[in-house]
């Protein structure tokens, strides 16, 4: 990478839908329609000739059974020619980061010059399943040769078979929920409730400021909510700029009601939204006269044992990505960390700064480095803005690239934790 492994990849622009708490403004909109909106508005904003797009890659964590390849639905927008191949992927909460990384690889390899990458999630619209037994009965009944036989098979249904199965946000391998994992990390790493609430407040204040001064809303394509189109969502609806530490302190912990510290406020909410990012080879951007926001310098993925500290992936991915970039955390003028939980962000930062962690877990003599709080998540993060699993990476990448341009700084870092003990990190460079 960084020009040594192949061609440099430019981030031209990014754009997203407003992020709305699940069950609110966007609750009747499908993940496909959210993704299409983000992609179409990105085309509009970049004034790109749609014919130039060669690949579409989208991430989604809980895909719809009816449209499992959301990326292809996006590439079949009527604005595009019909011949753009597209695939969807799942790297849990780092899915759209992975989509961007894949787009980067395709361009670096010379397989494409222009890639549209992004992600989407409609957590208001998760698939609700039938029980395994009832599903089996339905399948068998559909194959029955007579009405009598069909009724006979259906008659085997018992009331308990009709209880629907909803997807849980829990590790399939351990059964531990995300919240429980955050709770465990808070306790094991000594992250206090106060520290978490302070970090939460900071997230909301940053996001509220970014919304107010328009830096954040500039990345948002207002969404006109069908079918009445009377409601127009132009900013994220979960941001509470006026909340106070006192209010946050009053909330009861959710996952350990007696001794716990993780609350509904210091965790990211279930959210609906989509994001899209336009990637291009440096030469193509140059030929089209487009000024890139930033370039991708390196990225890395890491994984830990989900049975240990589930959301610790970034602590491993970040040093890897920095090493690949030939840089250190000190060089990063801006850092964007996905905030699944305040406890998780603070645990990861603690690990970056810990000599013990560096020695025992990374096999290094020196810690990864200090995270300067003034350059961390300068417009808030997932706790305030929301976290549509598949879309967050696109949001973070766009925000970082825009802010790097605005401040004209050379390097920026992205870190995202993901289900399965995974972590994703990416280094961007301005010039």
């Amino acid at each position, binding site marked *: 990478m960084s020009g040594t492994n192949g061609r440099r990849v430019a981030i031209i622009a990014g754009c997203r839908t407003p992020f709305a708490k699940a069950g609110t403004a966007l609750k009747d909109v499908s993940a496909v329609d959210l993704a299409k909106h983000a992609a179409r508005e990105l*085309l509009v904003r970049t004034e790109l000739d749609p014919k130039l797009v060669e690949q579409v890659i989208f991430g989604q964590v809980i895909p719809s059974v009816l449209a499992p390849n959301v990326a292809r639905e996006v590439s079949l927008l009527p604005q595009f020619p019909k011949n753009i191949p597209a695939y969807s992927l799942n790297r849990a909460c780092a899915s759209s980061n992975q989509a961007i990384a894949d787009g980067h690889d395709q361009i670096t390899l010379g397989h494409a010059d222009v890639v549209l990458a992004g992600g989407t999630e409609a957590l208001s619209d998760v698939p609700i399943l039938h029980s395994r037994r009832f599903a089996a009965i339905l399948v068998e009944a559909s194959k029955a040769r007579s009405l009598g036989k069909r009724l006979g098979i259906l008659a085997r249904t018992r009331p308990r078979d009709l209880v629907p199965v909803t997807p849980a946000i829990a590790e399939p391998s351990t059964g531990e929920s995300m919240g429980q994992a955050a709770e465990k990390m808070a306790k094991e790493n000594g992250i206090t409730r106060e520290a978490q609430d302070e970090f939460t407040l900071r997230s909301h204040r940053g996001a509220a400021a970014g919304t107010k001064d328009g830096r954040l809303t500039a990345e948002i394509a207002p969404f006109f909510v069908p079918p009445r189109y009377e409601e127009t969502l132009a900013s994220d609806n979960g941001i509470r700029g006026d909340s106070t530490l006192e209010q946050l302190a009053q909330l009861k912990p959710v996952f350990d009601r007696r001794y716990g510290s993780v609350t509904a406020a210091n965790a990211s909410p279930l959210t609906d939204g989509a994001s899209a990012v336009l990637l291009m080879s440096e030469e193509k951007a140059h030929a089209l006269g487009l000024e890139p926001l930033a370039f991708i310098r390196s990225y890395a993925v890491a994984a830990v044992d989900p049975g240990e500290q589930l959301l610790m992936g970034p602590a491993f991915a970040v040093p890897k990505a920095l090493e690949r970039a030939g840089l250190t955390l000190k060089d990063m003028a801006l850092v964007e960390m996905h905030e699944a939980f305040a406890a998780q962000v603070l645990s990861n930062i603690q690990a970056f700064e810990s000599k013990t962690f560096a020695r025992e877990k990374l096999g290094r003599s020196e810690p990864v480095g200090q995270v300067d709080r003034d350059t961390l998540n300068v417009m808030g993060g997932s706790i305030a803005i929301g976290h549509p699993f598949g879309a967050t990476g696109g949001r973070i990448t766009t925000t970082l690239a825009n802010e790097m341009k605005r401040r004209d700084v050379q390097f920026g870092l992205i870190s995202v934790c993901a289900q399965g003990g995974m972590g994703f990190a990416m280094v961007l460079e301005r010039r």
Partner: protein
Amino acid sequence: MGALSVAREGDVAVVTFDLPGESVNKFSRKVKDEFAKTMTALRADQGVKAVVIISGKPDGFIAGADITEFVAAKTEDEFRKLAREGQQFLDALEAFPVPIVVAIHGACVGGGLEISLACHWRVATNHPKTILGQPEVQIGIIPGAGGCNRLPRLIGLRPALDMILTGKNIRAEKAFRMGLVDELVAPPILRSAALAAAARLARQVIPPRRPRGSWLLDRSALGRGFVISQARKMTVGKTGGHYPAPIAALEAVAYGLAHGTKRGLVHEADLFAQMAMTDVSRRLVEIFFAATNLKKDAGVPAPAPDPRRIERLGVLGAGFMGAGIAVTAADQAGVSVRMKDADLTRVGKGLKAVADVIGERVKRRSLTRLEGGKKLALVSGGVDYRGFLRADLVIEAVFEDVEVKRNVLREVEAVTCPGTVFASNTSTIPIARIAEASQRPEAVIGMHFFSPVHRMPLLEVIPSAKTAPETIVTAVAFGRRMGKTVIVVKDRPGFFINRILAPYMVEAGHLLKEGVAIEDLDRAMVRWGFPVGPVTLLDEVGLDVAVKVGGVMREALGERVTPAISLEALVASGRLGRKNGRGLFRYEKGKKAGVDPEVYSVLGVPGGGGTVKDTVSVTERLSLAMLNEAARALEEGVIRSPRDGDIGAIFGIGFPPFRGGPFRALDALGAGAAVAKLELLAARHGDRFAPAGSLVDLAKRNARFH
């Protein structure tokens, strides 16, 4: 070279109809004779056990009878003979000793459908281009080659009347459900499916078809009588007694059912011939030719440059008009549309209007839900000019004010590429004045749509003196892609449609002031053949708009369009027309609920209206005001030809089609008679009725417009 070729596939003969040198198959006397000869030869061939008839055209079966042959006939006897010969040929087909299977892909209408009806088995493709219909009433005649007799017997009385009396086309799937076709297949296997059906029918008797419709309404004599009398009542109501063909078709169907096919066919041919001789049919055929001609007209004299291909459209203003343009462009032309308005709420309203039009089509099943979704995805909106850079055409539908329009023109030129065409959807402002603000006036043009855009079929394209021919042909071609009938008109106040409406509306005002009741005004013109009367039209257009247009027209045309009544007073009293539920009529839940009696006092009509009842003079004054202005517009070159004026008036304001348009109507009246009447009216009511110069000139030369 013949139109038919015969191939043998085993013991099935395949007759392929491919009219040389034509894009579609048409049925003519010559084709019929060749067909008869071919069938005679096949009849003699003992080896032929079944016949398949199929088209050699890629996308059409038979588009009907050759209309030029129809036009060439002059007398009722000739028309009767034409029908009888067609019938006899189809009788022979029906009585053919071995089964005939017809394979239908593409348009199968008029005579094409009648041929299919005479065959023994109909296989059609499930392709959207496959449509079946009996559109004869649309040119003032009735199906004369057995359609009025065979169709009701095949699909039942009520569905047959629905087809024959309206002339509408039926999609293949629906035709299959109705029993109009026997098998529905995918296009690639049409030929083999027809061959298989032929082979099958050759071995066994044709299975009897399930009788269609209900016994009571479609098959019992009593029920049929009831259905026919109801249909007659409805048809008389709908046609206002101006169109005899649907009534004649009804009679042909009823007679055939009552007296059997043999006598039914004779009567059908008689009625066909009678209808073909009517003036109404002549006018409708003329309109058909004129509209067909107009479709081939590039909008500039030959050699016309190629139009610019429009893929992306920008629309300024997401109001009712802008949204209407956006949705029609997406729906009909399939282009990507970006709408811009000042704030998100307005954009949202525009998108809602777009979604409503598409939703309505989905509801009516003229679009599937998926098709609707794709069309909807073509339209997006925002509050800035992002998305306009690559627009090939930008149409503005912003507030009707020259400075506002000039501003958006400047803005658009700053953000778009040099080739982008800028079109103004103004109804009152001269294009040249808007174009004064332009860096590239050669790419500025007027595109005057009528509201509601998705329903109104006319588009006026208005070049200024500086507009380049390429811009004109681009606007004309794109208007056509939007499904519009396009006339190119001169950049004069009111263009053509508002120009001829102005004196008509002013005259309605005079009559109102003189004491004619509002209902009587409307009734008189509806009776004359307009879809709505002048006062209803005023409410539809909107009184505020009418005030604005009226002001411009008065400035341009002077005395003769000076209003007798003050629409401003009505506007001041809060009446804007249908759009705010208050006009000269009252509206309850969006429906017209009678004249608002207060209007008379607001307008200062002495005696409160209805004191004068003279519908003859009402009709004469209103119609001649319009016809006279049309003649003036022609002499000033506002329209390029009487054809454009006729088509414009019919498609733009619903001028009675059976009158053929203003110029056909003047021709029917005779220039001399028209001048005499106008002079009389001028003497009685003032100079506004002074006959147009071109009319006087024609009268002198005893000549006609057409």
